[in-house]
């Protein structure tokens, strides 16, 4: 892993830089395409909502020894118990479990579900305690959804305030919120596209993604703030470069964090898929897995470029850009004069000059102090020193 550490070092010192901000049009384009696909899925295919949202009944017969003809046997048992011809979906889970799902069982009451439970226990020769039943009234899903949407809106509102106060600029808050909404939309879109079932547990996952995604963005923005603050003081980099440098410097941390967050969730996913089957654990972890991955993407590729775009028009930013340009032009001139090694990619993207080159440039500058006195831009440097 020496190479990864080396990669981190290079990102940190600026020897190697990825131009996140400069190439933002590309990221925006990719994101737009992805969002369009998500929208197609969401509005075209729609979400595959679980039983909890539509209402209905689900029974799980566990530990069945004889699963021969389980479908017809289950159908018959249920129809006999309810006296109605309900549309049943009978599936076998694993080796010995049978699941029966229906939107309406008998007269659609909890009592009917109870009767069916008894009938199934008899048919499959298991004690009734081995049958899990779930009855959900039709308005349950609506309640859950309403609550979730409420929570979402409140969270976004509160978050905007907290972030605006912390970062002292509403633009950072806005960029972070946009990134969060992107994550949410995209994750839900993936659910629509793949047809994964959305259960209340999935919705919990969606809501948690909010927290995670924001968390990720906040860590990056914190560094952005630190770097841009420094840039305003020294005037050596413009806002874009300082922000880009910040993203690069936190990239290793972003990767590490995402991997560490995804590892336990991935473990749940594997256990869930192989051993448990559908349930709270699986639903929750799947949505989190997707959401966290998307969240890492958005904090790097969307939030920060967007922030730079939002702030570009500000007079202070423009002024900084002018100062940085002057500084970098003069430095480049000095570097050319000093005949230092080839420029690193970090220089244009993040305004970071490698230590060796910086030293050479400083030396070159020191030798031509006289000349610079007459340089029209020299005054800016001097102003700064004052």
């Amino acid at each position, binding site marked *: *892993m020496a190479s*990864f*550490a080396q990669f*981190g*070092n290079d990102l*940190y*010192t600026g020897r190697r830089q990825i131009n996140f901000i400069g190439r933002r049009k590309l990221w925006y384009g990719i994101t737009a395409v992805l969002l369009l696909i998500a929208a197609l899925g969401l509005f075209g295919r729609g979400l595959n909502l679980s039983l*909890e949202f539509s209402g209905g009944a689900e029974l799980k017969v*566990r530990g069945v020894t004889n699963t021969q003809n389980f479908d017809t046997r289950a159908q018959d048992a249920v129809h006999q118990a309810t006296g109605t011809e309900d549309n049943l979906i009978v599936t076998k889970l694993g080796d010995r479990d049978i699941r029966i799902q229906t939107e309406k069982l008998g007269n659609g009451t909890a009592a009917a579900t*109870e009767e069916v439970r008894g009938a199934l226990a008899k048919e499959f020769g298991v004690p009734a305690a081995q*049958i*899990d*039943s779930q*009855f*959900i*009234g039709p*308005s*349950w899903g609506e*309640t*859950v959804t309403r*609550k*979730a949407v409420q929570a979402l809106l*409140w*969270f976004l509102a*509160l*978050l905007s305030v*907290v972030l605006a106060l912390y970062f002292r600029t509403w633009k950072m808050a806005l960029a972070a919120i946009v990134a969060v909404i992107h994550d949410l939309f995209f994750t839900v879109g993936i659910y629509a596209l793949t047809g994964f079932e959305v259960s*209340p547990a999935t919705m*919990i996952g969606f*809501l948690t993604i909010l*927290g*995670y995604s924001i*968390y990720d963005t*906040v*860590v990056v923005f*914190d560094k952005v703030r630190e770097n841009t603050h420094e840039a305003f003081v020294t005037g050596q980099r413009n806002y874009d470069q300082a922000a880009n440098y910040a993203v690069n410097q*936190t990239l290793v*941390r972003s990767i*590490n*964090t995402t991997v*560490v*967050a*995804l*590892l*336990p*969730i991935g*473990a*749940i996913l*594997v*256990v*869930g898929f192989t*051993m448990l089957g559908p*349930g*709270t*654990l699986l639903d*929750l*972890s799947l949505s*989190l897995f997707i959401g*966290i991955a998307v969240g890492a993407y958005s904090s790097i590729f969307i939030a920060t470029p967007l922030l730079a775009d939002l702030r570009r028009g500000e007079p202070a930013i423009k002024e900084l850009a002018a100062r940085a340009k002057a500084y970098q032009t003069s430095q480049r001139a000095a570097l050319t004069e000093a005949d230092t090694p080839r420029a690193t990619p970090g220089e244009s993207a993040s305004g970071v000059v490698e*230590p060796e080159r910086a030293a050479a440039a400083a030396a070159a500058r020191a030798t031509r102090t006289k000349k610079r006195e007459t340089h029209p831009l020299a005054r800016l440097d001097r102003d700064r020193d004052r």
Partner: protein
Amino acid sequence: MATRNRPSRTNGHPKAVLLTLVALIVALFAGIGATTVLGDAKGQWTPKLGLDLEGGRQITLEPVIGEGSQKINSGQVERAVDIIRKRVDGTGVSEAEVTTLGERNIVVSLPGEPSKEILNSLSRSSALSFRAVIASTRNEPPTRTLPQPPSVPKATASPSASGSTSPSASPTVSSAPSSSSTGANGVYPQAFPAAATPTPTPSMTAGATQSPTTATANKPKNPSDPAWAQQPVSAVWVKGGVVDQGSTYQDLLQEYSCTDNETRLIASNAPAGQPVVMCDQTQQNKFLLGPVEVKGDSITDATSGPETNQQGVQTGGTQINLKFNDAGKKAFGAMTTRLAALQSDADRNRSAIIVDGQVLEALGTREPITNGEAQITGGFTPASGKLLADELKFGALPFSFTQLTNDQISPQLGQDQLQKGLLAGAVGMLLVVLYSLFQYRVLGLVTVASLVISALFTYGLVTFLGYANNFRLTMAGVTGLIVAIGVTADSFIVYFERVRDEVRSGRPLRSAVETGWQRARRTIIISDVVNFLASAVLYILSEANVKAFAFTLGLTTLIDIVVVMMFTHPLLTLLARTKFFGSGHKWSGFDPDRLGAKGVTYAGRGRVTIADRRRAAAGGQI
């Protein structure tokens, strides 16, 4: 600079901070230990599990509003929770939980597999009503021991009940009421106009006292008519196995057992137009009651306050004031007019307030109350008066409930889920440990230690909250805990990366830890605040499962801050003083060479970096 001074204050005593943390953990587990030994309800060493892990029945009830005109307020829902809780407790199910869900829904969690009767009793509307007392008798538990089939007691029991063999039973029973000694001793306007009542009494009592002899085979003339006792019982009693086909209500009065919850459930479901037998809350007395005369929903208001006499002077007692709507006024007027005329009959003078198959109070009637406002006085304390007033006001909820969800989870499934969940957690933890060892070398062990401390804290707090706040760990909660591993580990990553950044900039480790901490702390705090905010919003606004998840996530976020501040940072400060870390050993995770610190650049004036020193040592210089 202020920021430079601050670290030295906290970090000057990393050992003290670590010791405080150890003390905290010891205190936490000592607290749990104390609950297991000393607690009222004994605490336990393991977290309380939610229904989905423990197995059992969970039902969500939603109120059904009758005409849409009435809005349900939170007081009513709270009251409904109380009533349902009483019902559940009354059925003898232990460890049942009744909680509100959102503004109006109610969740009932019952461990194990509850019977059908219990389930039915939950969603039944809590119908409070008034019935006239026809007869009463003491409940005598020994007569009804265990397995006697319904037919046997019918033959043997009749002699045992105080001389009630004859068909004209009511007079004999009426001699035995010990009503004044029990809770059933309230009286409508207590002290006065005795002068007004006598006039109707003679004529009415005459008619009433004659009726038992003449009306044995006849149809009862009014709800207080003792002839009801000779009527055949409603089918529900036969079906429920309390009495045999063809029994009369008189038989039922004898067979009825106050301590049998199943019987009580049948009583609460008995038809309103028929008599019924019920017991009072002490289970000492049983009553034969006439058909329902006044329904509880005709009570518009019930308050309790200091008792006043006619001159408006407080007497020191407590009275309950009732107000009826028009229908209630009429029905209550009719009932009290009839009962007031029966003053000579200690039983039949009374009306019973019943709820959930139980007599709340059996009240004597002194005078007809036709203005729709009644006062109940007699032997109430302010507390018991308020209780009854509340029962009267809310006891008859204007709504019944439908079942929104009804889940039965077998204990095996819950166990299975929990085991697999814990397995996933263990695997996840292991992967995180491996990854951090890979990335941070020996430093990864600090992560492991921190995670272990976090796990200790979490386990302790979840267990303790299970005792203190009845917090139950559900599957969603377990998932929250597993997910939190990632959040917790991230704090260390942010911190370590910051320290590494400082090392890269050429600082020696000891000062890199301090400056790195200064910067990382801000980030860790704000990101934890955001995370906590998310879980707080989720916790406040959401319901059921989401709440449990949000709670564990919020809890672990707080634990994360504590652990980073009080464990990881002090530990790292101490480690930075060791030779292994301080000199940037190859495996320490802080090797300056590996981190690319060249040692010449950012070290600043007069500062010598580790890399410098090492190079100097290699070159034989000092």
